[in-house]
């Protein structure tokens, strides 16, 4: 009979896996070479059971079925110790990877000849070839424009690394040295993870480990099912959210979601009514596991005794997606700018919760990216800067100001100036960008660059300009971002928010402002003292305090009587707000 894992061993194994994960991440962070990984920290790790089901993931809700694509070409029973598998093939993995820059390495773990687990290391590589430096560009219209495609491949065969494959890969990068070091870091990381997991298997036994992983999955699934049932009454709940467009003339594009709870407690997620795929690279090839993963993360709400894993997707009984839609594009549509659609998808899932009357956060803005490439001192350079935005306000707190996403960090000013031909003139909070509300939406960021390169070409991605992140429960939508060259001068030019090919020369000033998140609750209910603090801190202007919050501040001093009078005249509100109040967003 198989040995069961008792509660004590379960907690110990959970801790040991977390520790192994932390160690794998630390190794990548310290040894990777591209700034994308070591400063911005765009990398993740996860652990799967022997059958490739995610048992311990990260707090990033955008992972799908990572192991399945490998098993299709390399059946699990043919795997052996020392093997490492690799891919970045979006279509070949049904969106487990959703843009080609993300490289996934997987290593099976063995104990006493039995496969007991798989470990993953995942990182965004700065350049893998393609149309433009950085490999992702608003100009791309086919996946082939977005760099080299690696189908599931056995990179290491029993410990022998296939150097020829690597050579081909490195040869396709504009920055092969960084690519090489980053790949070594990932390889070392999965190697380390496999060693640690084998140690855990040896310590507890294969059966106990397998049962522990089973229990972790079952626990997460049960918790999420319970919470889904608490959140969604029987019936169909709908929410529609929009991205501005694809930068090629089509837009706005709608994501139309419906979640049905049947009387016998089946949960069906249906996104088939979503708009068609677009010629531009904003298509998001969404793995069917993602909606469950993301809803699950929201429902777990940061409980430290729970782990994010495939229990989330398992709690959703059916996922309906339509081929040819924005969320299930047909090969070979371009995918590189899918980040903005992905972020909107997360907001729309929260919208489903809000539509059902649940305690969802308002919508967040989609993080902004800029890629600047050109020549400095006669040498080519690539600066891919990710810029934080405002997140949605919550029933219990303001939206988070000026953050990018989970785990991803900024380039410090001092680092950026030392590394790239640009100088920052200003780096701060984007005033008045947070959606007004009892709880204010988070504010975006202002980054003001002076270009020091002889010449450069800029790609920029800003969404939510026409369709800003919505507010809820009386809260208003966030205010949009923009990109402007030489602002306030006769040479001022406002850039298309999703565009490439913008030429800049030495001395040009580039201003990027990012959008804020939606507010929660009526802004006239925000305590005046908090509004005053927002004004003092540069989050809200005195004019907006008066106009949006009904708070009168004169020369930095709160006028309580005038505020009370002003707040008598309270604007009516509705359930949602995007530019204007509405009962249902269309």
């Amino acid at each position, binding site marked *: 009979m198989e040995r069961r894992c008792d*509660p*004590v061993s*379960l*907690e110990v194994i959970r*801790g*040991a896996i977390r*520790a192994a994960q*932390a160690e794998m991440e630390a*190794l990548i*962070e*310290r*040894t*990777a*070479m*591209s700034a994308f990984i*070591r*400063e911005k920290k765009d990398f993740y790790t996860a652990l799967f059971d022997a059958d490739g089901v995610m048992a311990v993931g*990260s*707090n990033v809700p955008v992972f799908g079925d990572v192991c399945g694509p490998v098993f299709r070409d390399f059946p699990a029973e043919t795997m052996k110790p020392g093997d490492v598998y690799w891919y970045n093939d979006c279509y070949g993995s049904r969106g487990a990877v959703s843009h080609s820059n993300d490289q996934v390495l997987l290593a099976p773990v063995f104990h006493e000849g039995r496969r007991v687990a798989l470990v993953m290391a995942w990182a965004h590589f700065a350049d893998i070839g393609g149309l433009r430096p950085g490999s992702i560009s608003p100009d791309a219209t086919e996946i082939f424009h977005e760099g080299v495609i690696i189908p599931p491949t056995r990179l290491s065969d029993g410990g022998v690394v296939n150097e020829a494959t690597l050579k081909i890969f490195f040869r396709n990068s504009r920055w092969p*040295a960084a690519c*090489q*070091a980053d790949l070594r870091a990932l*390889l*070392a990381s999965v190697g*380390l993870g496999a060693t640690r997991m084998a140690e855990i298997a040896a310590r507890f036994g294969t059966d106990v480990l397998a049962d522990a992983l089973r229990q972790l999955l079952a*626990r997460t699934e049960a918790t999420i099912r319970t919470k889904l049932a608490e959140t969604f009454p029987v019936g169909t709940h709908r929410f529609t959210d929009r991205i501005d467009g694809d930068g090629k003339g089509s837009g706005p594009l709608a994501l139309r979601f419906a979640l049905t709870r049947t009387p016998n407690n089946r949960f069906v997620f249906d996104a088939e009514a979503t708009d068609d795929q677009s010629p531009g690279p904003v298509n998001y090839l969404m793995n069917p596991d993602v909606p469950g993963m993301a809803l699950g993360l*929201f429902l*777990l*709400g*940061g409980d430290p*005794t729970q782990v994010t894993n495939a229990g989330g997707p398992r709690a959703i009984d059916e996922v309906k997606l339509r081929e040819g839609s924005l969320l299930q594009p047909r090969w070979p549509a371009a995918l590189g700018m899918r980040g903005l659609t992905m972020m909107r998808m997360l907001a729309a899932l*929260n919208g489903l919760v809000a539509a059902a009357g649940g305690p969802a*956060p308002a919508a967040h803005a989609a993080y902004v990216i800029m890629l600047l490439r050109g020549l400095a001192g006669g040498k080519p350079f690539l600066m891919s800067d990710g*810029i934080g935005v405002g997140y949605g306000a*919550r029933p219990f*707190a303001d939206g*988070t*100001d*000026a*953050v*990018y*996403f*989970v*785990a*991803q*960090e*900024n380039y410090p000013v*001092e*680092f950026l*100036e*030392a590394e790239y031909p640009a*100088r920052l*003139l200003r*780096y*701060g*909070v984007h005033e008045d960008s947070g959606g007004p509300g009892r709880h204010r939406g988070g504010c975006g*960021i202002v980054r003001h660059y002076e270009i020091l390169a002889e010449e450069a070409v800029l790609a920029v991605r800003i969404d939510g300009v026409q369709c800003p992140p919505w507010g809820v429960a009386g809260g208003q939508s966030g205010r949009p971002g923009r990109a402007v060259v030489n602002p306030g001068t006769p040479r001022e030019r406002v850039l298309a928010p999703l565009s490439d090919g913008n030429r800049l020369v030495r001395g040009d000033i580039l201003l990027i402002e990012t959008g804020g998140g939606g507010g929660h609750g009526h802004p006239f209910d925000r305590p005046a003292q908090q509004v005053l*603090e927002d004004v003092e*801190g*540069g989050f809200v202007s005195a004019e907006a305090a008066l106009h949006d919050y009904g708070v009168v501040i004169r020369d930095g001093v709160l006028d309580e009587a005038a505020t009370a009078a002003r707040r008598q005249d309270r604007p009516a509100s509705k359930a949602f707000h995007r530019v204007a109040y509405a009962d249902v967003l269309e």
Partner: protein
Amino acid sequence: MSSNKPCDLVVAVDIGGTFTDIALQDLATGQSWTAKTPSTPRDPSEAFLTGLRLAVEAAQRDAAKIGRVLHGTTVATNMILEGKAAPAALVTTEGFRHVMEIGRQDIPRAANLFAWVKPKRPVPPSRVLEVPGRIAGDGSELQPLDEEAVRRAAARCRTMGVQAVAVCLLHAYANPDHERHVAAILRAELPPEVAVSASTEVLPVIREYERSLAVVLNAQVMPAVSTYVGRIERRLEEAGIAAPLLLMQSNGGVAGARVIRRAPATTALSGPAAGVVGARAEAAAAGIADVITVDIGGTSADISLIKGGRIGLTQHGHVGGWPLPLPMLDMVTIGAGGGSLARVTDGALTVGPQSAGADPGPACYGRGGERPTTTDAHVVLGHLPPRLLGGRMALDAARAEAAVRIHVAEPLGMSLHDAARGMLTILDHAMVGAMRVVSVERGHDPRDFALVAFGGAGPLHGASLADLLGIRTVVVPRHPGVLCAQGLLAADLGTEFTRSLPRGQATAAAIAAAFGELEEQARAWFAEEAVPEAARVLSPVVLMRYAGQGSELPVPWRGAIATAEYDFAAAHRALYGFDLPEGTPELVTLRLEARGRLPAAPPLRLAPGSGAVPVGRHTLHLREGTCDAPLYERATLGAGDAFDGPAIVMQFDATTLVPPGWHARMHGSGVLLLERAG
């Protein structure tokens, strides 16, 4: 006043939350006396003096013969942890007011993005003041400093009534001129009681957010630390003690009061560092130089590693959730200790991080605590004698059993003893995880190390932790519960001087010149601390990486770049499992570690024993079965006395559990060694 002058006596004072411990030592004979007095949180210097007088009386010595006073302080730590530091302002470069607010613009990796609330910064953006003036990354001046704007900022600071002002300007690590100038103007314009601190005086390294935080935290604790140090100095004067006051820093070295007043943030880990220095001294007395230390208190456990007698340092430390990149003890703290509460949710058992604290404390204390703590689990299993603190405190076994039974055993359907063992197993594994971080993750095999287990609960866990890691020797210090005071007695003066080299300028000549300048600074420091020539020790270290990497490894500087590159590749392999032969090694930062050796007492020798005799017996519930185990009183054991587990060793400040399969032996230095049999 020299801290190295020949003297008879040294005294160490460690102020804890409940008690203040004092250790007085005769440097000629090595004889020492200890005293304990209740702490006086309102004015800790009161207990400082009371305790000191008690110790002097116990020793029947003349207080005037005291040659140095050593102290570990938690004033700065507590202010940072509790967010109670003085209201402060930050002066920064125009355009960068929100650097602190934005931080690294991330939602932490371990956080839930929907639930996470960004912690409030130590200084709100309304108190961040901008001044025009700009230095470039290479140190050149792009725009002169606007002195008028600095004066206006000073005026704003007066209006705001802040007690401290921090200065952090962009690229000051490359050229501190503007920053020094700003600090000088602020000092001239502001009342003398307002503390002013510039980032490059605290930490001249790249990355503006982390440097801003370091200087803000430093400035914020300056007024309180300064007042505190001043009070203690006055108390010493009152007591007729004309000896220098030396305070423990986070790096394990002590420094004079003047240095600490300038950079009090360096005392953020003062308390734990004193314990680790003590652990090193105790292990060294038993002839052991490679140890992992575990200090288990009521709510947390601190773990660190010492290799070849050197305490591991890190530049990536955190205090109270804030990154504090000052060189500090490479210590991992976990929220697990004697007071950690066990709870069962959805059939899962967790232990900590919630703690029963000192009040109500564990159920067995009988002060109203009903939830089971790890201490209760020990009582249930018989690991603790019926009375603690030399018989002064009775333990209520029935309450401990009820708590474990109701809250753990019954919900999980386990036996009482299995439940208690389960709680301890979870705690042990949490600590083992942290011990692996400081050893395995840093490229060390824990089996090559001994374990020093201290803190009130340390010696109960030492042997089981060692078993889990394959460690064969556990060192139980003479006074495991009050090791900090011992550590202070054993500490040397210590500090570091660092200098970053601009990219591509690390030539042999530039390195020599930069180390020359650092030596200059070190000489000035030695002079300030009055360290005689013979006691000065300098260790040059270079921090290296492959070009493009973001994190450096320290390599001892042996005088040649080629040697350093060779050592670096070896260190990279040892730590990460690979090196990059095609990569370009880059020398980024030079560090000069300076030590001023303080005169030490001769080692104490314990009188030979005449065979260990139990003072009683106690029922132990071991995994192997229930047995009647001998109880030993540590004070009755002499050098060479030895016995096999299972056994329990009692002493005033801790209890040692010797499990079956372990052999206990009193070492001549007074430490108790547990050795794995077979």
